[in-house]
């Protein structure tokens, strides 16, 4: 057992830190700009930040050099994730393209598709959204109904997607559509790439429970997609989507952001007045803070075990569900702990006098709720663990 990074890796980390010291502060998070600010300006800032980071060699670490990647080691990827989180840089604007579509194209795309799309995912010149979920197909994604009919050299797509994150700002969408309505439900689905400016697409932004704009409805009305924007085989989209949904990440980047959250909350609890003392004088609250620390350490070392398995060439497989389930629950427990630390003050809205930390914890609380829904619900993660790790019988017969 050995948890050390090699001297070479530590060098890599140092160079990255120096780079970050010189370059942070320039990045802006467009989603944090809220209703008021200059959204278009912030968006451009976010694209610029990703591009700068890519040009420095810190985006697309696992991707082939030929398409703008780095062919870096897994350990270097982890180091980059850790350091970006440590410096609290904003999330990369094209994360969906980077984490889901990119790896899919590397494996399943044609050479033309890779050359055409990968560099612009990396540079954030083209932002991507994921059009999988539909009103009638969420956890049971294979029940999707959006149709794609073949007409000469084109697919003609009609249907509706929903919960599509970032749709209003996306330039492109990768989507699943039914190309063979008569085949069994998993065998008639294709994986398509669609320009969001194509006639027939309508985006209707939805407000989420936290009050922000995060996801949208996307309507397709006879939208024409060139045939060469099909990824993989015709009707072969389900297998491709499944592999990408399982695209493993060790979850180590989550750890640092959670750690920072706990640190900040600890500081709040150590100064928030409660009677003649502070909130953290309460012994039961102290134990909960210690418990939150245990949970975060657990996620860290779980991440190291996943990483170590990947380095050894083993796929963590359904084991990634363990990390996702634990991380979403932990995030929610931490947010709940924050509100209980505030006590009755937790009811105050953002700009009220006496509000604690300018209302950050209520926002964190609502944000955390989405983590056990998006990307496969907690229940679906439990199904996966039960069936694929423990080997229990399938719970759903379909």
């Amino acid at each position, binding site marked *: 057992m050995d948890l050390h990074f090699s001297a070479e890796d530590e060098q890599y980390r140092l160079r990255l830190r120096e780079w970050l010291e010189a370059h942070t502060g320039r990045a802006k998070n467009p989603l944090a700009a809220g209703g008021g600010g200059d959204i278009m300006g912030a968006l451009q800032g976010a694209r610029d930040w990703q591009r700068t980071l890519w040009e420095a060699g810190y985006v697309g670490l696992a991707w082939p050099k030929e398409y703008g990647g780095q062919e870096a080691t897994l350990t270097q990827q982890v180091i980059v994730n850790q350091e970006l989180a440590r410096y609290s840089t904003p999330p990369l604007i094209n994360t969906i393209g980077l984490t889901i579509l990119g790896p899919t194209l590397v494996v399943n795309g044609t050479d033309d598709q890779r050359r055409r799309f990968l560099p612009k995912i990396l540079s954030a010149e083209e932002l991507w959204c994921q059009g999988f979920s539909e009103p009638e197909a969420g956890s049971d994604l294979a029940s999707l109904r959006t149709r794609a009919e073949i007409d000469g050299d084109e697919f003609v797509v009609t249907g509706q997607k929903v919960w599509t994150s970032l749709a209003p700002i996306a330039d492109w969408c990768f989507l699943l559509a039914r190309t063979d309505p008569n085949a069994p439900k998993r065998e008639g689905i294709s994986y398509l790439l669609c320009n969001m400016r194509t006639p027939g697409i309508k985006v209707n932004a939805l407000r989420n429970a936290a009050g922000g704009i995060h996801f949208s409805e996307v309507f397709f009305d006879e939208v024409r997609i060139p045939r060469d924007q099909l990824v993989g085989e015709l009707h072969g989209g389900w297998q491709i989507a499944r592999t990408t949904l399982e695209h493993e990440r060790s979850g180590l980047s989550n750890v640092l952001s959670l750690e920072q959250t706990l640190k900040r909350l600890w500081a709040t609890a150590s100064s928030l007045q409660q009677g003649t003392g502070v909130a953290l004088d309460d012994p039961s609250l102290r*134990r909960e803070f210690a418990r939150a620390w245990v949970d975060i350490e657990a996620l860290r070392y779980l991440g190291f075990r996943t990483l*170590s398995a990947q380095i050894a060439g083993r796929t963590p497989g359904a084991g990634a569900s363990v990390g996702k389930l634990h991380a979403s629950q932990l995030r929610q427990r931490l947010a709940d702990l924050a509100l209980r630390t505030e006590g009755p003050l937790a009811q105050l809205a953002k700009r009220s006098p006496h509000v604690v930390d300018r209302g950050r914890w209520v926002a964190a609380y609502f944000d955390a709720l989405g983590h056990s829904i998006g990307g496969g619900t907690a229940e679906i993660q439990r199904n996966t663990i039960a069936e694929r790790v423990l*080997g229990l*019988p399938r719970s759903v017969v379909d």
Partner: protein
Amino acid sequence: MDFELSDEQVALRDAARDYFANRWSRDHVRDALDRPPVVVPDELWQEVAELGWVGIAVAVEAGGSGGDVATAAVIAEEAGRALFPSALASVLTAAVALDRAGDRWRGALLEGVCAGTRRAVCAFEEPGGAWGPDAVRTTAVRDGDRLVVSGSKILVADVEGTDTLLVAARTPTGVALVAVPADAPGVTITPMIRIDGGQIGEVVLDAVQLPADALLGSDAPADAGDDAGADADALARSTYDLGTLLGAADLLGVAEAALAVTTAFANDRVQFGRPIGSFQAVSHRLADVLVDVEITRSLLYAACLAMDEGRPDAAELVSAVKVAANEAAVRATEAAVQLHGGIGFTWELDVHLYLRRARAGVATFGDGAHHLDRIFAQHTQARAAT
């Protein structure tokens, strides 16, 4: 980076699992519950000693197998999985303390312990409701060329049949372990039974007179330039940590065993025309246990590494894994009872044996609250220091 067991550790794990499966039956545990305590027959103790497991983490030159903390944890986990008595972990821990205390303690006693002919166990806890080295009030006072130990100890695991007690006592410079022969005048041992049938006891030390060098390591102030061996206070604390870590490993084994039997049962038992494991009220509860188990294992490996490397965060990680193991073991074993239905509530089935072991282990080497308080205190200290 390599954060899994090494090939040798995997081989040891498999060997230990086979050995316990062949040589130790859970029926012994059940039978012995009616005629407690559950003890390891001499013949088996001799075998595990010959396999090198009692001295698994003792240096080779001192008569041990030279394994690291992670290797010791492998043995503790497998013992837990098999419900093999806790004596193995208790004596293993005391052996490591003797080994680390310096040359004075390497010799007949430690060699005998490793060889299975002698036994030593540690005695930390005391009456009064506060736990761990900080709560020790038993004293070790120098009186000429004698060391006089007075106080009382409770919850001393596997005390019967031991010939040496490593008693945690307060000295002018902190806490230290003092080697007390079980038959020394002034020592009174009252055996008791643990809820899993295990054997514990109360030890009263009434001005026990010992030679001046009965203390493990040096209790001289740091600036005294004394080179009599390890720092006694640090040794006592790291011994408590090792015991805690092995206790957590034992609980992890128990949790995994309970999860495995319950998963197998959920695959077999049919109700409403389907295996009960297809009902999510069942499968999701087991999935949650799996998460608890994986988390505990991750923290266990982290704590082992930290202890082996002598890192400053070792104590905190040890507390973390004990907190996680406590929860995993209780959830796994309670789920085992519930999900077996009526048969899960019988004396015949093994699941209550796992539950007993879990409940006993949870309360050993500090409960969850104790370790959470320890984590909080260490965090606060670390903050004050920076």
